[in-house]
């Protein structure tokens, strides 16, 4: 009897369910990352030349990460009404930028500048090696806001110049 059991074990004929998948596996994707990858929110583009749109383009193809984040701002209230993103990067980068577009919607521009990469990383349970993805997402938000502000200055400046020449 014992010998039979031993024989079975030796030949690997025992039930396969004894392999513990969850034990000792590091570097697994958090389900939030997979969710954002499978069902990405807010993928797309706005018209760059629309004065209500700010575009942030950060990263470099050489590094393997490029993020483009666009925000549509209501000029009267200064609130971000809509956001879109496009990313060339790994699953964590896509998820970070997708999360960034979700979090900026409905907030005032000054508020979104306080979004930190550590919050994005925590939400997605990013491992240390992927923290730079969340850093890039934070940079993208800041770049988009900066671009919008620069655009406003230009259009205001042009309007003012137009007024002075008219007058």
């Amino acid at each position: 009897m014992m010998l039979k059991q031993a024989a079975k074990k030796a030949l690997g004929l025992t039930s396969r369910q004894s392999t513990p998948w969850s034990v000792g596996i590091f570097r697994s994707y958090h389900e939030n990352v997979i969710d954002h990858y499978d069902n990405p929110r807010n993928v797309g583009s706005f018209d760059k030349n629309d004065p209500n749109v700010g575009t942030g383009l950060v990263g470099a193809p050489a590094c393997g990460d490029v993020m483009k984040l666009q925000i549509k701002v209501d000029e009267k209230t200064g609130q971000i009404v809509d956001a879109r993103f496009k990313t060339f990067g790994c699953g964590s980068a896509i998820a970070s930028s997708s999360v960034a577009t979700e979090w900026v919607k409905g907030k005032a521009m000054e508020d979104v500048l306080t979004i930190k990469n550590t919050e994005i990383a925590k939400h997605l349970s990013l491992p240390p090696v992927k923290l730079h993805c969340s850093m890039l997402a934070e940079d993208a938000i800041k770049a988009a806001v900066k671009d919008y502000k620069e655009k406003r200055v230009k259009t205001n400046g042009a309007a003012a110049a137009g007024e002075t020449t008219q007058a």
Partner: protein
Amino acid sequence: MASKVISATIRRTLTNPHGAFSRCRHLSTAAAATAVNYEDESILMKGVRISGRPLYLDMQATTPIDPRVFDAMNDSTIHEYGNPHSRTHMYGWEAENAVEVARIQVAKLIEASPKEIIFMSGATEANNTAVKGVMHFYRDTKKHVITTQTEHKCVLDSCRHLQQEGFEVTYLPVKTDGLVDLEMLKEAIRPDTGLVSIMAVNNEIGVVQPMEEIGRICKEHNVPFHTDAAQAIGKIPVDVKKWNVALMSMSAHKIYGPKGVGALYVRRRPRIRLEPLMNGGGQERGLRSGTGATQQIVGFGAACELAMKEMEYDEKWIKGLQERLLNGIREKLDGVVVNGSMDSRYVGNLNLSFAYVEGESLLMGLKEVAVSSGSACTSASLEPSYVLRALGVDEDMAHTSIRFGIGRFTTKEEIDKAVELTVKQVEKLREMSPLYEMVKEGIDIKNIQWSQH
């Protein structure tokens, strides 16, 4: 008594329809691939849920064991359990006989004499022994090693180790198609060059180096030629005399054999000397002490014999599948680049770059296909593959490569499914890619000033 019980157990489980083996059969890849069935067979692994097991298209990493090889090993494991170096009784003689039969089988595959085959634990050990062993033996007169930038890590790391000991190493660059420039090789050879090490078939891009020409150059200059042929034996015709190699590393698990065994071919005429890495009782001609793993060696021998018989058929089958894969993808997608020479290539390796799509995100989407990538994100150091960089591939393209490995057991259905999944994922990721958008608008990506960290 024990063997009777064991063989009865095997007989019972093999005939038992509900035994473990039949459970394995339910999970065969080809069947699972074509029938998507989420209810019962879905597997949750690393946060990803997939239906059934993924298609295995990573033959360069390792190959599934051929059932015929397993049969040979099985018998040997149970009955030939003696130590092959025991001289005094039948158990030792039987095991030694099994090892010698395997030795002949391996030698036949590479047109060598059985006396020139030294069994080791794998190609990594064989590479280490060859590179370090030769240079240490001739350390008084020879101080220089030549190798290429696209070698396997174990060769490169052994050379790095030699550099720390005071030797000099030349890492030859390769052309954009992955082949070595023979003129550069000739110029690099010095009077004190002790070894030239160039792999026959590259594991990442699959290019086949011009072995006969390199062998001729080494013979002219009287320099020993070592080659890492782990990906080559059993797949392309190998002849150690024609190639003029002095040392050749081989691995079993790349040719449908077991893991944990390999061999080093060490030429006897003219003799190449080397210092062993493993000291001990002087087994394997004093070059690799330690009890041989009889079962593994028997498996290796059986795999070599099968490879010899089936090489031609395998090549035809795999070539058809490779064309099916490449044409299937190229029909539906543009911006697909094959990395490495298309002419001088092993048919079972297809390394593709998909422009404007990043490798790790593509792998994440291809969860039902087991492939590998040369992208930075999949390596721990965030650096793209050094092989692709040596080819001179643009950095952004190096991030986008996927390596498909096709083998003896790959089926047409698996290839078709892989094509379908790849095309779907690439299209989805290109929709998400700002680079693709820019290209569509007519912006030249190379001229943009990127704000990197």
